[in-house]
């Protein structure tokens, strides 16, 4: 079994009595690219902030790099090995690119000058340009440089491609995939963009109302889940809802759509007993998994 870079269990957090996270269980194995998906307000950013020690948890435990993160000292030790890209990509407005790099470098003894130069060249970031004059894309690139050159074992990113144009988004995704492949950096990022998650992630965790509703290897999930479409002569029978093994059921007109995982054959056999005029079993996309679990559509 892979070593877990992040292992959170029973993680709970409330704001003014309103729960943001409810006993969240989260695992991110080493060397993986894990997409963290959820609707707005699902608890994604809260989770990332808890991992980085910006918030205090109400309950539960966090382990990073195999060590419990339960004090400021342990959080600092974990942060020594983490690169973070915030959603807004805001850096110090009173520094230029070079000052920002020199400032960040001072906190990381394992700073890699070769990577610093490589990404400065690759991104064509002018050293003397003031941070406020950088575009959002350039700030994203600078944050990625700061995260990568520190030799971080784990990159935590909060919607790293938000606000970027499609070309820049593609570049960033490519860099992340290369980074994971070449340096073995584990990447954990939240996103609303299902397509980009599907493009580069090998693992996903979908969160809804503060709880993980689905998590695992993306290929395994796609192989495991199936959509069964049943068309009836009239209105689909109510008995459908009581079929075993259904994760989600929706009906539209004469058609019933079942999302299931595990033994699809057994479910189809039971469904045929209800007399559908046609039965179709399809593979599912990440988008379908996401929507069925968070929207209950």
């Amino acid at each position, binding site marked *: 079994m892979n070593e877990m870079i992040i292992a959170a269990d029973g993680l709970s957090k409330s704001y003014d009595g309103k729960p943001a996270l409810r006993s969240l269980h989260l695992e991110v194995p080493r060397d993986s690219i894990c997409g963290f998906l959820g609707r707005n307000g699902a608890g994604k950013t809260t989770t990332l902030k808890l991992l980085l020690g910006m918030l205090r948890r109400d309950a539960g435990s966090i382990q990073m790099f195999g060590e419990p993160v339960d004090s*400021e000292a342990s959080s*600092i030790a974990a942060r020594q090995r983490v690169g973070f890209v*915030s959603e807004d990509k*805001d850096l*110090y407005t009173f*520094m230029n690119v070079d*000052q920002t790099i020199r*400032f960040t470098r001072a*906190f990381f003894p394992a700073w890699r000058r070769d990577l610093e130069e490589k990404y400065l060249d690759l991104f064509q970031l002018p050293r003397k340009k003031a941070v406020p004059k950088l575009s959002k894309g350039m700030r994203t690139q600078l*944050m990625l440089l700061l995260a990568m050159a520190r030799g971080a074992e784990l990159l935590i990113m909060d919607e790293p491609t938000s606000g970027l144009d499609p070309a820049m988004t593609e570049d960033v995704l490519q860099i992340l995939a290369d980074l994971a492949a070449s340096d073995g950096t584990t990447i954990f990022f939240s996103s609303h963009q299902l397509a980009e998650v599907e493009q580069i992630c090998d693992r996903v965790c979908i969160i809804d109302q503060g709880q993980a509703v689905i998590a695992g290897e993306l290929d395994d999930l796609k192989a495991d889940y199936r959509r069964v479409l049943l068309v009836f002569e009239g209105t689909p029978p109510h008995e459908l809802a009581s079929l075993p093994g259904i994760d989600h059921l929706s009906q539209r007109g004469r058609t019933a759509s079942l999302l299931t995982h595990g033994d699809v054959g057994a479910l189809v056999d039971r469904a045929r007993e209800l007399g559908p005029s046609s039965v179709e079993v399809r593979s599912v996309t990440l988008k379908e998994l996401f929507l069925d679990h968070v929207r209950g559509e």
Partner: protein
Amino acid sequence: MLWYKAWLETRWRFVFMVGSILLIWLTPLWLPSFGFRLPQGVPASKIWMGVHLGSVLLYIIAANFLAGSGVNSQTTYAAASGFHGSMFFTLSLPVSRRRLLLVRAGLGALLTSALVAVLAGYTLLQRPGGASSFEVVEYVARSIVCTMAVYALSVLMACVLDEMWQFYATSFFWMAFYLAQSRLAVIAWISPLRGMSLFSYPANAPMPWAPIVASLAFAGICLCASVLVLQRKEY
């Protein structure tokens, strides 16, 4: 490098304060060119009294202005989102919040002390009859110590309020304190504001230990409270 960041963050405030002080000092030179003349017969001691009161006011403004401490100083209250993201960058670094605060507050305290030292020294040297070196050193030292009480309260306020409200809240507190000291002898006895004053405690009088000790204690309490607030704060 936190010192470097703190300096970059604070330098324009410092330059602004130096500029303001220079403008005030140079005012007597350019006012006559606009036809402004002091009324005849105003005693030099009275003019100096104004200079001194102005200086004390500048100590307080400088302390308040340079104390935008803590990671909150990286916030700009954007329309809806609240906190500015550079704070998240800072908090993601492998540094304790206590160190973040102490470095930022330490640099602000150094800059405030430098300004107060220059102001206090200048003020005393302008006194009719002049002042000995010992008097200058003594007055500069106690002005700095007493100003640290003002500064530390501003640091604390900066940990709980945004920068604009920090300035107002601290100014309001010291105005209320000034009124209270004129009514309650015990407050007057330990007042940092009186400790800064050459009227309450002339430079050639015995050292005003009560305001000095009270200022140090108050500054220490405010600083400890700031650390506690910052450590408990959620972002």
